[in-house]
């Protein structure tokens, strides 16, 4: 009888564990890459550096992401229908280019919530900045640091 009682207790515990919570359309994945511009002093200490952009565009869309704006932090969307997104950065005195490549983990959330993409393995195949670091190669809402740090000479 102890065996039965123990099995029923195990069954009840397993039943509680098995009651996972249904999806509520929540996702920590985001479809944008965050970039921050930095400068370093003689002691190699880095600090945020604001840049004045004439515009930031991508040849894959007609949208202009930034126009006549000064900022150190950028948020740029990636093309979910492609594995590469290019961005052109224009300033008074010229311009820069970054070509991002990435993979996607696709999953069905639910019929109501639709599809959820997680962008993973973010990398650059071409860029014209002095120096650049990929801090986080997975795009998630919960990550506080920028995905990309790039360094400029001021």
């Amino acid at each position, binding site marked *: 009888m102890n065996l039965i009682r123990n099995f029923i207790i195990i069954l009840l515990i397993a039943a509680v564990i*098995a009651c*996972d919570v249904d999806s509520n359309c929540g996702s920590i994945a985001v479809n944008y890459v965050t970039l921050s511009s930095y400068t370093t002093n003689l002691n190699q200490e880095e600090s945020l550096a604001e840049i004045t952009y004439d515009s930031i565009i991508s040849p894959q869309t007609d949208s202009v992401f930034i126009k006549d704006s000064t900022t150190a932090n950028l948020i740029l969307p990636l093309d979910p229908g492609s594995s590469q997104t290019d961005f052109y950065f224009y300033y008074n005195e010229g311009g820069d280019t970054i070509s991002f490549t990435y993979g996607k983990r696709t999953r069905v959330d639910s019929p109501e919530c639709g599809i959820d993409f997680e962008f993973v393995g973010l990398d650059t195949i071409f860029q014209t900045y002095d120096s650049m670091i990929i801090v986080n190669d997975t795009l998630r809402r919960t990550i506080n640091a920028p995905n990309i740090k790039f360094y400029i000479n001021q």
Partner: protein
Amino acid sequence: MRLILSFTLISSLLFSGSSFAQLQSRNASSNNANSKQNNQEQAPDTTKVNEYKPKVPKEFFIPTGIRIGTDLVALGIDAFGGKRERYEFQADIDIHRVYVAGSFGTSAYRSTGEGFDYSHEGNFYRIGLDANFLKYDPDYNTFTVGIRYATANFSEQLNVNSTDGVFGDYTESFTNDNVRARWFELTTGLRVNIFNNFYTGYTFRIQINRKIFNADEFRSYDIPGFGKAEFNNRWTFNYYLMYRIAWKEKGVMKRTR
């Protein structure tokens, strides 16, 4: 739906609990009666407990028949669900109070939603053991607890047709071929003889430790025999109609008085 299933689980546990309590009290009363008789006939020995365990004849361990049946819940989903076409067959063979149980099923599922169209096709099987706790039942009704190993083999396809706010419309197709999933189950079930050799009853399954292999292109959404792949653990419920094909008279333990 969960409320109904929870109620069913609780009521079955209560039923099984009361059955065991009844069996226990019967055993206890027969033991008491035996011990009283012994006390009167033999010299008093208060340190020894006189327990009588009937010896199980060896022929009881020879299988006497096979119960085969189908899952009525799956047939109901086929008839009224629309999205899923599932068939499941179950069989068990008795070895005294232990049943070797197995089931095989097929599943075809299609779901369309916000910007996607998903489908899978495959099969699954489960194999395991059940222990029967109704050892004195002359109709061979069973109340069992058991374990299963389950595995599913399937292919799934996902077509995405969506619109991005910045980059516009895009279409993609993903296919996972030869996906395999496996999990374990803790089960409890009841089978009741309704007439002749027909039995009916439920199996409540707690499915745990799900693993998926070869789902390379996208994350699996629905697994045949398991359900939504986003869960590692879940529970499910089957209601079977079964027929017992007997080739030998099954021996049943006689209750000691």
